[in-house]
């Protein structure tokens, strides 16, 4: 399966290598660098690159390429999914997954990689199992270890490895027992020039933070489970129970985890919470272009639209933009031609707008394409699909936990064509 792993940073340096079978020379990465050179954008490197003797499968996260070397047939998604799991684990351990963090913790990284794969086949990827084997580094623990000489490495096989609930360790204890659930929905939409919706769909996730003592057995029910069209679960969810009763029944992992991701059936009309009025035009023969943008709230169920961020890739011919925002700040990068406008909160009484002119290269003909506008926003206390959690019950333990549910709607890939 996975033969070796190379970590390559944005400037093309291999800063970590790990081999699970015999050593593969790092010169194999030259094929990757070739592909990198050919690609116009960092994202355009093909995920699978064949070389004469190996296959390179890479993922790009946090501006680091994780390049796995494969020698024979293997489902590519298997490798890709694993690499993403590695990144998630690093993030979980070090808070961030950057080159600096990896270099600082190189020993822990190596120990982790050693435990995650045996002979290139995943051995332990559950975070709670890994955390029992290798404790995450904290300042306090480092200090204690240097004094007492104890180590970060567990001596016993994690109980989860053999149990039927590998995602939860035994003997969890908390003084405050609490379970929080975040229902986060994202709207993916494409809006056309005239403001009508071409496609819009809602994807949601329920992220949980559960800190409960012992082995609690939770059930979560919805007011309107029918809304959920397609779901994928954390392995802890009992599938049969969902099939039969549309109830989520599970023994939760300890700590943060994604309980469920779902897709809201496309029959339901999606409410679009913001609208954009735009007028971006270039005149033939003139070195000036007009730029006007106004944002406004649409169906928001009375909730405020916050953290609005507008970005747009302007045509190559644009030299500079001289704009005037009614609120917030804007930046224009003359090299990448990326315009971004940090709007903040939309005030329905006084709609935010960005107006001004763009200067074009003199002599160049007018660009024949109009830029698309990407919008990000957040709406607190609202699940745009109308999904509502009915109740959360706990069985198996005697104490009374503190329960909380939060709703949020965000823009996913929200694009307006102009």
């Amino acid at each position, binding site marked *: 399966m996975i033969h070796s792993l190379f970590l390559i940073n944005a400037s093309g340096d291999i800063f970590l290598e790990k081999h699970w079978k015999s050593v593969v020379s790092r010169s194999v990465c030259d094929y990757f660098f070739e592909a990198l050179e050919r690609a116009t954008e960092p994202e355009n490197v093909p995920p699978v690159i064949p070389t004469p003797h190996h296959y390179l499968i890479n993922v790009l996260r946090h501006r680091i390429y994780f390049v796995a070397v494969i*020698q024979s047939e293997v489902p590519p998604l298997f490798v890709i999914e694993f690499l993403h799991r590695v990144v998630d684990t690093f993030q979980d351990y070090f808070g961030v997954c950057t080159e600096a963090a990896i270099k600082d913790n190189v020993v822990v990284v190596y120990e982790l990689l050693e435990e995650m794969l045996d002979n290139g086949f995943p051995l332990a990827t559950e975070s709670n199992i890994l955390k029992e084997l290798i404790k995450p580094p904290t300042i306090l623990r480092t200090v204690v270890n240097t004094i007492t000489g104890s180590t970060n490495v567990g001596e016993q096989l994690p109980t989860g490895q*053999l149990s039927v609930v590998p995602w939860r360790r035994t003997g969890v204890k908390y003084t405050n027992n609490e379970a929080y659930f975040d229902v986060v929905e994202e709207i993916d939409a494409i809006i056309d020039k005239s403001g009508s919706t071409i496609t819009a769909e809602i994807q949601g996730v329920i992220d949980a933070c559960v800190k409960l003592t012992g082995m609690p057995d939770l059930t979560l029910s919805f007011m309107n489970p029918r809304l959920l069209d397609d779901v994928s679960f954390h392995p802890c969810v009992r599938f049969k129970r969902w099939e039969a009763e549309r109830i989520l029944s599970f023994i939760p992992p300890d700590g943060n985890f994604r309980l469920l991701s779902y897709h809201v059936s496309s029959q339901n009309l999606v409410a679009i919470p913001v609208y954009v009025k735009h007028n971006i035009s270039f005149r033939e023969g003139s070195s000036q272009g007009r730029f006007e943008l106004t944002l406004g709230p649409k169906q928001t169920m009375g909730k405020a639209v916050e953290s609005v961020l507008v970005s747009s890739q302007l045509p190559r011919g644009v030299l500079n933009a001289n704009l005037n925002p009614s609120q917030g700040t804007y930046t224009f990068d003359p090299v990448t031609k990326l315009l971004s406008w940090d709007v903040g909160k939309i005030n329905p009484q006084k709609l935010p707008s960005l107006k001004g002119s763009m200067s074009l290269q003199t002599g160049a003909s007018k660009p024949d394409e109009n830029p698309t506008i990407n919008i990000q926003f957040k709406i607190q206390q609202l699940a745009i699909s109308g999904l509502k959690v009915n109740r959360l019950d706990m069985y198996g333990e005697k104490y009374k936990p503190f329960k909380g549910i939060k709703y949020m709607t965000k823009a996913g890939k929200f694009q307006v064509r102009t």
Partner: protein
Amino acid sequence: QIQSSIFNQRKAHSPGHVCKNILHVPVSGLLFGPWFLCRNEDLKEMLESNKESLKLEAMKRIVGLIAKGKNASELFPAVVKNVASKNIELKKLVYVYLVRYAEEQQDLALLSISTFQRALKDPNQLIRASALRVLSSIRVPIIVPIMMLAIKEAATDLSPYVRKTAAHAIQKLYSLDPDQKEHLIEVIEKLLKDKSTLVAGSVVMAFEEVCPDRIDLIHKNYRKLCNLLVDVEEWGQVVIIHMLTRYARTQFVSPWREDAVFDENSAKAFYDSEEERRVDQSKPYIMDPDHRLLLRNTKPLLQSRNTAVVMAVSQLYWHLAPKHELSIITKSLVRLLRSHREVQYIVLQNIATMSIQRKGMFEPFMKSFYVRSTDATHIKTLKLEILTNLANEANISTILREFQTYVKSQDKAFAAATIQAIGCCATNISEVTDTCLNGLVLLLSNRDETVVAESVVVIKKLLQTQPSQHSDIIKHMAKLFDNITVPMARASILWLMGEYCEHVPKIAPDVLRKMAKTFTDEEDIVKLQIVNLAAKLYLTNSKQTKLLTQYILNLGKYDQNYDIRDRTRFIRQLIVPNEKSGALSKYARRILMAPKPAPVLQSAFKDRDRFQLGTLSHTLNSQASGYLELSDWPAVAPDQSVRNVEVVEPVRLPCIYLVFKDNVKNSESEENSDDSNKSSSSQSEKSSSESDSEKKKTLKNKKPQQQKLDSKDSSPVFVPETSHELLHRMTGKGLSAQYRFTRQPCIYGNSMVSLQLTLSNSTDQALENIHISEKSSTGQNIHRFNAIERLEPQASVTVSMGVDFNDSTQAANFQLCTKEDEFSVSIQPAVGELLLPITMSEADFTKEQGKLVGMNESSATITMTPENVSSQSVNRKVVSVANLGVIPSGQENIYRFSGKTVSSGSLVLVSVVLKDPDAVITINTEKTVMGSMLLRQVKTALTNSGP
């Protein structure tokens, strides 16, 4: 020079701190060598110190070196000394180092082997497993026999985690020494029988790597694998699903045949006689239940969070499911498109292949494939591909409108791909060909070269497929010709001119005139087309173009490129008649102006499904090394019974003993069963010679679990005589049934609990055909007794049956049937009945108990009633509750009992320590649930007074 001398001095003064100091000295090329050496010297010293913390620090730095890809091999002797360190982190880092460099330093690596051999016997399963991991990762051919031994040993280890590591070690050994294949297959065969979900994925992986052609090893494990699948860890699921896909294609007949037959029927129905139709219908397709089992058990995995699992299930359905069931995978695949960019890439590729064959599957989700400006280019092109595949008469206008936006994209490579896609749609759907052509012609005046070039190329292809009625388009192109600079586009226009020169008789010679002027400045492909155009015009319109052609041919003759010189020479000989030209020039016109077949615009994903979907080979569209071909469905299904898993077939073993009695009372029936019990054992002794071979097999199967122990299965110490009601005569309409546990090893299967059933007829009519219905509502595997044909009034009969409770106290529900009625009954086993006694020495007992601590241990303290304190009564009480063996004890107040669970053979150890007046009961077993239940029962038994 100066610096290095300073450096030497420093080194002499303070060896311990040199390294840190030296870091501040600018490292020049000259200095690098000694600097590096020094650093290693420093590390060596640290490794040889007595302080654990220094050693650890040194190892951490060495690992840092390895991670950076620096060579640290010369430290090998110093590192290998620490292999037996007590500090577990240090030890692990040494392991990391060993695995990395052992191949280079084989002799030195051998020094560490004995440490691992010792660790393989460690009571801690984590240490056993990691020793095996390292031992098998050291690629030193000399230790192959040691590895082989270690693998065999570990494959029978009590800990499933160690067995999993053994499965991984198999692959490592195989890659080191393929000659070991036969021995390794034996181990694989053994491990495939393993019931632990932890092992399943890894052993199937080993199977795929070592002996993927030994499909016969799978037969007996097929159903088990299907049933375990949901509980296997996600990575194992992917491997197992891929393997089962391959397996199923060799074992079951095609479920797709049905559609074909159905189609034929509907076509023939009007014309064929009734009889023929009946012949067709007489052999309807019935899906093998095992085939169905696989489809059913994989379906819930579509909801997995692991994208690789979802993809694996999708490809399984694509390759195995009847066509009408395929639609369930659509939603899940579309869901994966929300995931990371790389995941999208792979999933889109697979969807592209699927959508060629089955448009309908993805058509409702067309909008999910709309391109966003933020997508990566390869994602965009794949989405285009899919949209093109999905296009049909109904949705083409929507798709074309969408394409119009894409053409304007800033990403020019993508815009060009869109134009090709429009070309594809135009050829596939004839209704829109003209619309597309007009649209493309408009694009010719686009400002971007790539867009124009691509449009010209696509128009050329389209015109070729169309009868040449588009002379105005060609004229238009000729007009634009001067502004087009992309060579491919110029070449295409020239070719079009030449090919259809008869439709544009006035323009073509003029274009040739212009080209003659610029010939020398053109690119090679354009020059070739100029020569072609000249030749064609010469043949059709020699009056106007003769001189021009001569001129161009002369230019071509002295071109720098030999292709062009070659072509020129050839054309000249072909078209200009002279005395030397042979017979060919007569046919010049027919050669050059031959009607040419139109190019077929087809998807790059056509025929990709010759590779199994979801594989690397499919992604690359070429066979990757180690790719295993998916075979075609067999025409006739191979023997289905190979998958049956009645391990011991009782060859001539009688299993029904009929005992007739006039009157049935409880006490008598008990006597009865005792009798029959005796007779059964004597019978089985008699027949033992015949079934000897089978018995041996079963013993072998059991043995591995206990090889490390010197324990033997033993006969039960105590068999309780109480029987339990299964069916009361009132509810059973006169048929009553009682059951008791015989506590004997079951003859029907190793993992079954043996039961004795006494059926009596209290009606005044004979009951006929008493049997257990085939369908069982719960999942247990039940060995049914042979149907009793006739039970006379007031008679009773005792039969034996076996139930695999799977080490759980969940009741086995089944239907007891007579000829007329069906009665639902259930057997609820007490936890003590799910055990079989074993004997072992006291020392072994303590050793095993030491391994099963922590979560595997449950204990309780009770106050004993005085009359229970005698050794006899403790023993009796415990063995009456649970089927355990008594271990002779050296100490007076400690009682030990041992047994194993029937299904999985996990050890169950019970000890009772008396401390007047209290007693501590301790139960050690991997089956923690059973342990705690057993503890409760032993507790009640020992606290209750009475016999």
